[in-house]
């Protein structure tokens, strides 16, 4: 099968073309750097199937960012049968700069002149026949979005792939052409493929090439001694770049005829005037971020709780009671989605449970299926629509081009913390999922900045941690009667971001010292999000979550059920009072002391070890925390409803906790969801500071197996073990501090105040100490 590679600038419509060609579901965003790894698909609409490879978007073939190296190596080493170079017609000059470099390789090329529809709408024209002549490679006008010209493009590409093409350059006739040609002949003599391309890069003093051709570089060095240009000196890299642009402006740019548009502002300009405005730009960003979380989490949507009639809002007495609102107020779209899904999963698991009971009455089978599998899986599945809703909001930000503006307006602030505004884009993506966010850091050119960003991404609470937040804060609000769950949730998101900022500051002062990376970035025009693209992306994500639920989470819940219902000698625990004899209990109790300083360790009585177990399970996948909770909680509840007294007598539950649970059940204030977690809180006697600390621990610790694997691949060699240590240390310190502060608020004793002051003083001294030390130690320049 023939292979065609798509190459082009970031944001030139490459991924859209890839989707149009392959019918694939790659994600399209509107900011530079959406495709950061190469993707493959198959084009089936032609005479023969053709494999299409979507390379990351690049501005040049210089070796400064990892993605540039990926694209360059692919074309050089994998030798595709044809390179389809996509050129954004609305941005001709800069796009052709890459074309002039690709043309130097010995590979067939076809130019896809994309966004012709947008260009013609502006009233501009390009003489593509003349451009074909001058470039010496076929140029085809297309619109990837509308799907026009694609057939012709593929026909031309197939035609070209059957011919052998030799590299060609626009540098003939420039001052150092003589040198380039000599180097080319020398390389050709050594039987090196793509001699022209390598020769030019070698003359440019490209670090990859210099390492590869130690002998030939001497030729360049010798020549440099005799050469002097008044503007560039012997900086051949600059000279070559300048020569390329000069050639483009002289021979290619005039082929575009622009309609004089005067000073009329485009829609994009008008939007930009407001969104990046001096006074309201930053407040608007904060408002948008708040709105996203409010839409996703709020039980009191638009703060109408006090205004609307409770009975009317909660539809009390109807079949839809509580679905669209509760005593607190109207539910936000995210919460409504959760409620609906929760009803669906509860109904289905009810049917399945009843169906199973009609087949068998073996207690352990019923227990495994009902308490083990169904409770855990349904609990996690109920959250999927809410997570997808959050992803939808974030994707809209990406699609419209707003993310790039966020980097623009916040760069100044982020620079103070030691990262550029550009690094903030993957961090925001981290609210959705850490994995694509980590992969995306490849667009960052600076190695230290990449390391910092990858390490900080998990602190931006991802979708999989959403159930922990929602369920635990919801249960807390019920069990301890503390205000609204929304506010705790928002506060915890802020805590996560604060941890990110503090740790970045510390790393910048110690292990990752260095200058802040430059911030030179394209700002794409705004456009309305494409409905189809969005839906494709969300569908992909839904599949991803559902797949995870039925694989890793399913396996985990089954294992949890077994180890919590069997003793070490493999006998089934039939008597609930012996729950503390289970395998899980002994493992949990063994682990418990590590979490004591964090407030959810040995100080919890009875079944308190479940928190230790849940925290450990969360290291595999964060959904496991809630799945594990629900599995264990339903085991506890099942026992509780049968024989509460036995549990008390066996010392599993204290009489106070028993009466607390009874009161909670009798009050009927809470619905189905949160019920298990409330029972869990009551059964373990955990206080709210411990719970908050538990959430903070899960938010800041090792993210999940998949994210660790991604980080391992993205970070430089040997960095993953330090990164894991960093996450563990951060989570322990952050949650210990959280616990101390919350306890102080809860009890307000003199001791807690003293301890808090000491902690704050230590932190301030540490940061000041690092600063003072660094001032004496000058930065090593590269």
């Amino acid at each position, binding site marked *: 099968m023939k292979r065609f590679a798509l190459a082009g600038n970031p944001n030139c419509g490459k991924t859209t073309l890839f989707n149009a060609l392959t019918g694939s579901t790659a994600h399209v965003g509107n900011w530079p750097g959406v495709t950061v790894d190469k993707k493959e698909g198959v084009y089936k609409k032609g005479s023969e199937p053709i494999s299409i490879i979507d390379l990351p978007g690049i501005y040049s073939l210089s070796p400064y960012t990892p993605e540039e190296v990926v694209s360059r190596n692919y074309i050089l080493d994998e030798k595709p049968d044809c390179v389809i170079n996509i050129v954004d017609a609305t941005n001709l000059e800069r796009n052709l700069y890459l074309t002039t470099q690709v043309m130097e390789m010995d590979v067939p090329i076809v130019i896809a002149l994309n966004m012709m529809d947008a260009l013609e709408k502006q009233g501009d024209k390009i003489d593509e026949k003349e451009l074909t002549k001058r470039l010496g490679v076929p140029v085809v006008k297309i619109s990837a979005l509308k799907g026009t010209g694609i057939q012709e493009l593929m026909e031309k590409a197939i035609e070209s792939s059957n011919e052998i093409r030799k590299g060609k350059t626009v540098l003939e006739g420039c001052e150092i052409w003589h040198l380039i040609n000599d180097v080319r002949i020398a390389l050709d003599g050594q039987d090196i493929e793509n001699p022209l391309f390598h020769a030019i890069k070698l003359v440019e003093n490209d670090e990859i090439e210099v390492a590869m051709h130690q002998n030939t570089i001497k030729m360049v060095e010798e020549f440099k001694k005799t050469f002097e240009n008044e503007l560039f000196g012997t900086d051949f890299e600059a000279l070559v770049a300048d020569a390329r642009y000069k050639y483009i402006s002289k021979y290619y740019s005039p082929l575009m005829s622009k309609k004089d548009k005067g000073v009329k502002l485009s829609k994009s300009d008008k939007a930009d005037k407001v969104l*990046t405005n001096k006074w309201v730009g930053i407040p608007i960003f904060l408002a948008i971020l708040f709105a996203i979380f409010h839409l996703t989490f709020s039980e009191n949507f638009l703060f109408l709780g006090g205004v609307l009639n409770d009975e009317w809002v909660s539809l009390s007495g109807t079949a839809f009671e509580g679905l669209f609102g509760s005593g607190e107020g109207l539910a936000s779209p995210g919460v409504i989605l959760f409620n609906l899904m929760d009803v669906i999963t509860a109904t289905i698991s009810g049917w399945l449970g009843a169906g199973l009971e009609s087949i068998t009455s073996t207690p352990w089978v019923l227990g495994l299926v009902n308490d083990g599998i169904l409770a855990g899986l349904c609990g996690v599945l109920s959250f999927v629509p809410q997570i997808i809703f959050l992803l939808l909001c974030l994707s809209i930000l990406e699609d419209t081009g707003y993310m790039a503006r966020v980097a623009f307006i916040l760069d100044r602030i982020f620079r103070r913390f030691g990262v550029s505004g550009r690094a903030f884009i993957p961090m925001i993506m981290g609210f959705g999922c850490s994995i694509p966010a980590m992969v995306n850091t490849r667009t960052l050119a600076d190695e230290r900045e990449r390391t910092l960003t990858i390490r900080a991404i998990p602190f931006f609470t991802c979708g999989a941690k959403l159930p922990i937040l929602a369920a635990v804060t919801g249960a807390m609000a019920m069990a301890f009667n503390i205000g609204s769950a929304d506010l705790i949730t928002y506060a915890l998101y802020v805590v996560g971001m604060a941890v990110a900022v503090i740790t970045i500051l510390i790393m910048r002062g110690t292990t990752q010292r260095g200058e802040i990376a430059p911030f030179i970035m394209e700002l794409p025009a705004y456009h309305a999000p494409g409905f189809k693209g969005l839906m494709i992306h969300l569908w992909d994500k839904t599949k991803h979550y559902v797949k995870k639920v039925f694989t890793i989470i399913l396996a985990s819940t089954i294992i949890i059920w077994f180890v919590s219902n069997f003793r070490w000698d493999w006998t089934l625990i039939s008597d609930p009072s012996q729950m503390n004899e289970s395998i899980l209990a002994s493992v949990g109790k063994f682990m418990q002391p590590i979490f004591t300083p964090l407030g959810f360790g040995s100080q919890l009585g009875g079944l308190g070890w479940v928190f230790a177990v849940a925290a450990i399970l969360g290291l595999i996948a964060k959904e496991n925390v809630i799945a594990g909770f629900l599995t264990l909680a339903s085991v506890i509840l099942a026992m509780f409803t049968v024989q509460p007294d036995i549990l008390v007598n066996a010392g599993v539950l204290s009489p106070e906790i028993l009466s607390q649970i009874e009161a909670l059940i009798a009050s009927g204030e809470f619905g189905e969801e949160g019920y298990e977690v409330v029972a869990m809180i009551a059964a373990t006697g955990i206080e709210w500071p411990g719970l908050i600390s538990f959430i903070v621990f899960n938010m800041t610790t090792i993210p999940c197996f998949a994210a660790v694997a991604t980080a391992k691949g993205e970070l430089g060699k040997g960095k993953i073990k330090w990164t894991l240590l960093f996450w563990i240390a951060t989570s322990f310190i952050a949650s210990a501090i959280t616990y101390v502060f919350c306890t102080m608020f809860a009890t307000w004793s003199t001791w807690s105040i003293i301890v808090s002051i000491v902690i704050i003083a230590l932190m301030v001294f540490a940061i000041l100490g690092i600063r003072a030390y660094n001032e004496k130690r000058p930065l090593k320049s590269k």
Partner: protein
Amino acid sequence: MKKLSEFSIGESGVIKSIVCEGRIKRRLFDMGVTPGAEVYLRKKAPLGDPIEVTIRGYELTLRKTEAECVNLEVKD
């Protein structure tokens, strides 16, 4: 001659030279910031830095420290 970092909003000019080293220079060149190119300062970020310019028909953002390398001849 004036540095790009000293431009005020609405000013435009033609690049005469770029005075800096290594990676930043390469990046500027790759993005089309080369001698002869016309630059228009569109706006500044809410905190005054970075700046946004129109160059070769597209929008580019860069920091003042990077803009300091770019010398231009002011156009009326």
